[in-house]
């Protein structure tokens, strides 16, 4: 007898035929990643949770439009990206999203030049990420934390790979400078 794990493709096909339980299993596999992606974008837990629910609801309603089950992840993150930026536009319709200042959160602490204890490392990283532009932060999130390839990121963000690389590499240079004091204290 051959055992095969139930893959996302199987669940997607079943969910597209109206199997809610299959979709719930799919949600359980992806909800944490989508939530953390939206948390990096919004820097607000409540917003991230609300958006995550909206993302999966839209995904369920539009699952039949997904032609290739192998493209589920970029497709899902594309929905998440659109939902997040839709929320940004609703809250600040008069300004461009790229001009929005970093959102103040409970995780923000000063890093540059100040001593940072190892226990505060994750807070320092969060603070450094907040200093990036929203586009740079999203590129770092998709690449470093979500592990997408450049091609997939281009699909999610609807822009050329060259733009993705430009945002990511600029962000990486800034993060190197921001995190240098912490790294000098011995991150292994």
């Amino acid at each position, binding site marked *: 007898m051959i055992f095969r794990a139930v893959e996302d493709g199987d669940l997607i096909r079943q969910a597209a035929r*109206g199997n*809610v339980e299959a*979709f*719930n299993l799919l*949600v*359980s596999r992806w*909800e*944490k*990643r989508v*939530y*953390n992606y939206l*948390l990096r974008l919004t820097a607000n*837990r409540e917003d991230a*949770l609300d958006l*995550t*629910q909206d993302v*999966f*609801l839209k995904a*369920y*309603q539009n699952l*039949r*439009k997904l*032609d290739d089950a192998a493209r589920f992840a970029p497709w899902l993150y594309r929905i998440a990206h659109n939902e997040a930026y839709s929320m940004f536009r609703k809250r600040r319709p008069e300004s461009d999203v790229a001009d929005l200042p970093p959102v103040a959160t409970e995780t923000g602490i000063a890093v540059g030049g100040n001593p940072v204890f190892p226990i505060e*490392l*994750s807070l320092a*990283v*969060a603070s450094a*990420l907040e200093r990036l532009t929203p586009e740079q932060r999203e590129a*770092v999130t998709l*690449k*470093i*934390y979500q592990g997408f*390839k*450049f091609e997939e990121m281009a699909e999610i963000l609807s822009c050329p790979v060259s733009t993705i*690389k430009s945002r*990511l*590499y600029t962000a*990486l240079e800034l*993060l*190197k400078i921001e*995190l240098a004091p*912490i*790294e000098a204290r011995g*991150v*292994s």
Partner: protein
Amino acid sequence: MSCSPFDLKDYFFEELDGAERKQVEAHVTGCRTCREELSRLRLTGTTLLSLREEEIPRRIAFVSDPVFEPSAWRRWWSGFWNTPARLGFGSAALVSAALVVFALARPAPVQPVRLVQVPTVQTAQAAPEVSEAAIQARIDQAADRAVAARTRQLKDEVAAERQRLLMVAAELEVDNRRQHALFMSAAEYGPPRQPALEAK
């Protein structure tokens, strides 16, 4: 400025294929500057990954709700439209539309006119003439039939009533005889006793 054959960041992000990666690794082995740059990238990456993913505060689950589910028609249409059949359907629809437009726009052909002699029907002359006397006779016959039927019905009802009255009279006769017999018996055995008066 890196002197690597390929961008060290592309190597760091694993966006190079196998041959390109080997070239970069060979270069880094002999180039101190690129080795240090790659080391800094790795250190930054490690630092960034110290930011752990958070658990989602509340699990998300859906229940089957017809409100959120497309109708059977929409499911069928979606399934149909996402198949190669849509091309055939589209072509057929286009041809049908063209035929309809052609049929509506084309002038109707003129048929040659031929005169035909149609015989006229003389209804007034052909109809049989019915006289007033005949009509009156038919009415009288119908009235006579109705009167005779009613008379027979009444006679039957009278006979039935007479029969019923005879039966009632016979029953009365029987009752009278029974009553007479009772009077005779009472006279023979005397009046009934009155126990209450005797006790006093």
